[in-house]
């Protein structure tokens, strides 16, 4: 009896201890991460890389534990993770540690369900998302789950990012490898060395371990360069492994990466398809110049092949045969590149090759990290007289010869048979992306009546045409109105006429007439005209405390002329002063000239860099303030 009493006491003590502990934990983490409803206590990914039957065997153990802090946090009853054909799921488990009748109990997860998980631009891939739904989720409960995946391709290990949209108390990334396996790794975005690294031995294996504590949620600012540019993370890869005293290289330099990629394309379009050949001849008929032939091919693919991406397993790496793409009339970046190169070959155009490229969201260069993590896109590179041209048919409106905006400034890995070249893709000069507008205005009672002409070329043309799409009638008029809006949204388009040349290297042009009512400000004896009607960059001050680089999609050179016809009876008493800004970031020139009764205003403006670094924010803001002051100037008339 006494014994039973002791057990009961011990039982009650343990229950009390756990109850207090759970509550304490909640208080500790609520103070540590105020305003959060849940904290991820630990997030651990461990690769186990070993040799089995002389082959690499790679598994990854993943464990997560989170603590519910508030009543709102109780709503978070589900967690998800992904798997795919190349990274199959081997096992998983999940449970809640929750107080039940004063005692902490392990309660298995309630249900799970799978669904496809893919990015919006992908039509089909094999990635599945498994959603586990937990039971008894309450304040102080811990959701715990784990899963094991296998990595079938040793070239395609996943990066580990030390960030999430929840706070993370501790994030750990480990690689446990056999001694005859050598790994490489690269740490990104950790200037304060917050990631702790340890190398040790465990049961005859080498353990590489990286950990980071107290991670606040990831913050996305506007015009952000992307999570990989700012979040601390590691990309690890297998360099080589030894079998029977023979070294087998995997990754580590560009040669090895290229060798891996070459396997995906070496058998592509070996046979010339008669239909593809006939098409090539038809498209390039009567064209003598090699570049013009390629331009015709590129524009044909842009127009006729629609973007549909299949990303399942190696379909994400292997381009389809040109014949298939031509027949289907759809494909992804690789497929379009396959067709362009095949058509070029049939048309007798040399040096038209496939090229791998990482879009701007990926911050790595090939020399820095030669793994498949560097790129996520394929284009065509055309080399002529030692100069390269990059063709990306995924943008239906892209002018021939310009790279798409999302690969500007990146490196391309260009196929050259068994060899390759790494070539820098240029940032498109703003003078190639022109917006040229001239507007004449006169007054009629309270209205400004204007006629104008706008020409848009380069990447701006592409952007505008993609936005306008096939909108017709009223919808088109509203889109054009938005595109041309002058002064303010009182701008009413009374007429417009577009000229959209089939040749995307020629400017898109729109002539228009408009009315702008109540734009003028007047008193009984004065009129005020704010003469610059397009105030680019006016709202682009960079906020204090911003941490990430400020990025633009592309650079435009704007050239605006406004001819203000003054009322006959008015005396011009004030004309604003000219402005010139020329620094590392911005070029602005604004000039005023009075000719007879017309005031001519000429403004030229362009930004010089795609990325404004934190160290340049002050100069940028200073320039924007100067520009704003110029935009705020008025012509004054005495009436």
């Amino acid at each position, binding site marked *: 009896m006494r014994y039973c009493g002791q057990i009961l006491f011990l039982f009650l003590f343990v229950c009390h201890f756990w109850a207090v502990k759970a509550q304490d934990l909640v208080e500790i983490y609520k103070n540590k991460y105020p305003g959060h409803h849940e904290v991820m206590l630990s997030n651990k990914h461990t690769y186990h890389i070993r040799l089995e039957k002389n082959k690499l065997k790679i598994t990854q153990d993943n464990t997560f534990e989170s603590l519910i802090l508030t009543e*709102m946090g109780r709503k978070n009853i589900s967690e998800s993770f992904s798997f795919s054909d190349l990274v199959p799921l081997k096992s998983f488990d999940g449970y809640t540690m929750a107080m039940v009748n004063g005692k902490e109990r392990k309660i298995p997860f309630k249900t799970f369900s799978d669904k496809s998980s893919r990015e919006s631009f992908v039509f089909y891939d094999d990635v599945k998302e498994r959603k586990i739904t937990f039971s008894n989720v309450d304040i102080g409960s811990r959701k715990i789950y784990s899963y094991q995946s296998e990595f079938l391709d040793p070239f395609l290990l996943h990066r580990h990012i030390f960030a999430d949209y929840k706070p993370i108390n501790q994030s750990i990334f480990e690689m446990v490898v056999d001694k005859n396996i050598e790994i490489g790794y690269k740490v990104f975005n950790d200037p304060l060395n917050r990631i702790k690294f340890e190398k040790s031995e465990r049961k005859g294996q080498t353990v590489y371990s990286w950990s980071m504590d107290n991670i606040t949620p990831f913050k996305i600012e506007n015009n952000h360069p992307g999570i990989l540019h700012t979040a601390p993370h590691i990309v690890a890869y297998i360099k080589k492994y030894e079998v029977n005293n023979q070294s087998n290289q995997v990754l580590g330099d560009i040669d090895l990466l290229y060798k891996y990629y070459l396997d995906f394309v070496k058998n592509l379009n070996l046979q010339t398809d008669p239909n593809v050949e006939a098409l090539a001849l038809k498209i390039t008929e009567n064209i003598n110049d090699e570049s013009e032939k390629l331009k015709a091919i590129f524009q044909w693919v842009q127009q006729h092949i629609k973007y549909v991406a299949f990303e399942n397993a190696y379909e994400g790496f292997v381009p389809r045969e040109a014949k298939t793409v031509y027949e289907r009339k759809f494909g992804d970046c690789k497929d379009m590149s396959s067709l362009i190169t095949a058509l070029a070959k049939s048309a007798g155009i040399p040096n038209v090759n496939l090229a791998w490229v990482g879009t701007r969201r990926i911050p790595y260069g090939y020399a820095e990290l030669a793994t498949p993590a560097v790129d996520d896109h394929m284009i065509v590179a055309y080399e002529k007289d030692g100069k390269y041209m990059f063709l990306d048919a995924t943008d239906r409106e892209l002018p021939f010869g310009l790279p798409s905006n999302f690969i500007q400034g990146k490196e391309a890995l260009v196929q050259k048979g068994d060899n390759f070249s790494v070539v820098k893709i240029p940032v498109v000069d703003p003078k190639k992306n022109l917006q040229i507008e001239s507007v004449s205005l006169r007054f009629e009672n309270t209205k400004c009546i204007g006629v104008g002409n706008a020409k848009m070329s380069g990447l701006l043309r592409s952007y505008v045409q993609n936005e306008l799409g096939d909108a017709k009638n009223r919808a088109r008029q509203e889109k054009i109105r938005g595109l041309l809006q002058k002064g303010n*949204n009182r*701008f009413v388009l009374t007429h417009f006429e577009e000229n959209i040349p089939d040749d995307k290297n020629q400017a898109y042009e729109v002539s228009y007439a408009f009315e702008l009512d109540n734009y003028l400000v007047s008193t009984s004896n*004065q009129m005020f005209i704010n003469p610059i009607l397009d105030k680019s960059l006016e709202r682009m001050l960079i906020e204090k405390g911003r941490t990430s680089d400020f990025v633009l999609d592309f650079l435009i050179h704007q050239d605006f002329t406004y001819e203000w016809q003054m009322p006959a009876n008015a005396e011009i008493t004030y004309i604003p002063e000219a402005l010139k800004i020329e620094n590392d970031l911005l070029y602005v020139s604004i000039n005023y000239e009075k000719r007879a009764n017309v005031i001519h205003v000429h403004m030229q403006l362009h930004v010089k860099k795609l990325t404004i670094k934190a160290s340049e924010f002050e100069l940028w803001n200073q320039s924007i303030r100067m520009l704003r002051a110029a935009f705020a100037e008025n012509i004054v008339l005495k009436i």
Partner: protein
Amino acid sequence: MKISFSFAAFLCAFVAFAQFPFHDYTYQEHKEIELPLKYANENEIVLHKDLKIYLETNANGAFQYFLYHEKTLLNSDQAVERNNRIYVPFREGEQLLVNKVRVIGKNGKITELKKSDILEETDEERGLSYQYYAVNGLEKGAVLEKIFVLRQTPELRGKTVVFQETDPIVKGSFELIFPDHLQFKYKSANGLPEAELEQNYKTDFSKISITFGNIDALPDDELYSNWNAHAQKFTYKLQTNVVAGLFSLNTYNEFAQNIYANLYTKHDKKSVKALDQFAKKIKVVTPTLNQIREIERKVKESINFNRYYEDNKNLAEIFDSKQANILEILQVYAYLFDKFNIPIEFVFTSDRAQHVFDDDFDTYDNLKEILIYFPNDKIFMEPLSFEYRAPLFSFTFAGQNGLFIVPKEFGKMTIGVPVIKKIEHPTSLSPNTLNISINLREDINNPTVVSKKYFGGYAGAQLQPLKDMVPPEIYPELFRQFAENYTQGGELLKMEFENEGTEKVGLLPFGFHLTYEGGVLIQKAADVYLLRLGETIGQQLEFYQDHERILPVEIDFPARYQRTITILMPEGFTLANPEDFNFVERVFDGEVIIAEFSVKTRVDGNKIIVENEEFYSRIHYPLSIFKDYTRVINAAADFNKRVAVIKKK
């Protein structure tokens, strides 16, 4: 034995499906259709659209075969891109029997869908599967032809089929074929031709059919409009089963009695105990509105609504799984409000943005959304929405009728009685207010602007829950971008919030207060200062561009805005254009003002005070008063551009 039975079942199923009603339905020979001139230039033209439903009954119940056949001419590259990926969804228990697609090229070349191109995917949680594929050979100028046949559970209690599209339809048809012991009630709306009944159109079967031609596109991009309310459509429901002797099926009476019995069912002891324990955790407060909100908060924060969740064996299990489906959630509320002696009526209605409650047709199609009505306080609560709190609920449920299930005692029994009544918007909530002060005395070139804005009612309800949903590190960043609508890019000195969080929804207005450098609002003109005063209220919607209006105006909810701007004037300066800040625009319904925008300005010592009132008391504005309505809307947009001329006296 088991194997033989399964094989037999398979064989039966196979035989049944092999002879399903549309098994031999296929493409017709493609012929060029002469397009009506008015459609010739459209991006997409539906050449024909035919829908057929074949209803069958047997000992196992009723099921239907649904045939969908559409042929569309694609006249632009973008039209090709919008149509070259086809998804055919079907629910658990349904079979997709036919999935045929072909492309007829401009040159007449026909490319048919290959079975090997079809992908299939299942969303296990929602019990929804898709067959999907990219269409081979589709180019501008081609015709895309699709035929699907699905075997599914029939929707006999009320189904609306919308025929009109955002693209024109050259011709089309609808057929509902059913055993002739059944009778349907049906109705065409918004100009769709009336249906014709053909009894005994074949042995033992009758048919209701519609044929139509040249249905114009109905644009869905008009601001403040309700596309679904005006699209041509057909609604039907089963009314009579002669064989069963049932002559008044699927009525609101039947619905009310059934739903009431389900919601107030007798629970097992374990469930009652769990419900009582849960009820004990709910604070007892007064007045009734606070008690309602407390019960609502407790349920919504403790139980996740999951429409597809079927794993609770009884109500007690909800409190462990923390998940409940519609019926379970409603049963919990029914029990709790009863426990707290708060009378309620369940209300069933529709989301008027999807389907307007049809007062003249008692179909269950009108009853897809649910509210709880508190007759003593005359307020509503939305039981299935986490973000809304009483007295606020989804605004698209209001402004139309609903079916109120009113409990009536008959002896010892209580049953639900259906009553159709108007669901009013909760209009007694605090309006939106904006108080702005601009201090030109300190620095006329860069005045400090203090903007105190309160978003009341629905406007606040869109913003208040963000506090609970967005991490605190990201929350201010969201609002910093939102603030730019008021600051016009002026540098933000301070941003403060009041009454944040879901708990404050419907109770107190959300306060959003900004202090910013107003230099961006000042323009220079020699020695005159031009203050872009109107921009401080933020950009307003506008109808400046004159387009022919097709749909009448329907707004989300009645709204009121009161704004006061105080300018602290520097010594020796005056406002030179006060007349620009005194004007009014109104919309009348007879003598009653139903929308207004007015501005008055007065001088008070060294202050100039601009007072503005704007309201829209109705949600519907017919086409006949559209011009008046745009004048009020544009008055607000005009005010946004008004500039105060500040010059020396």
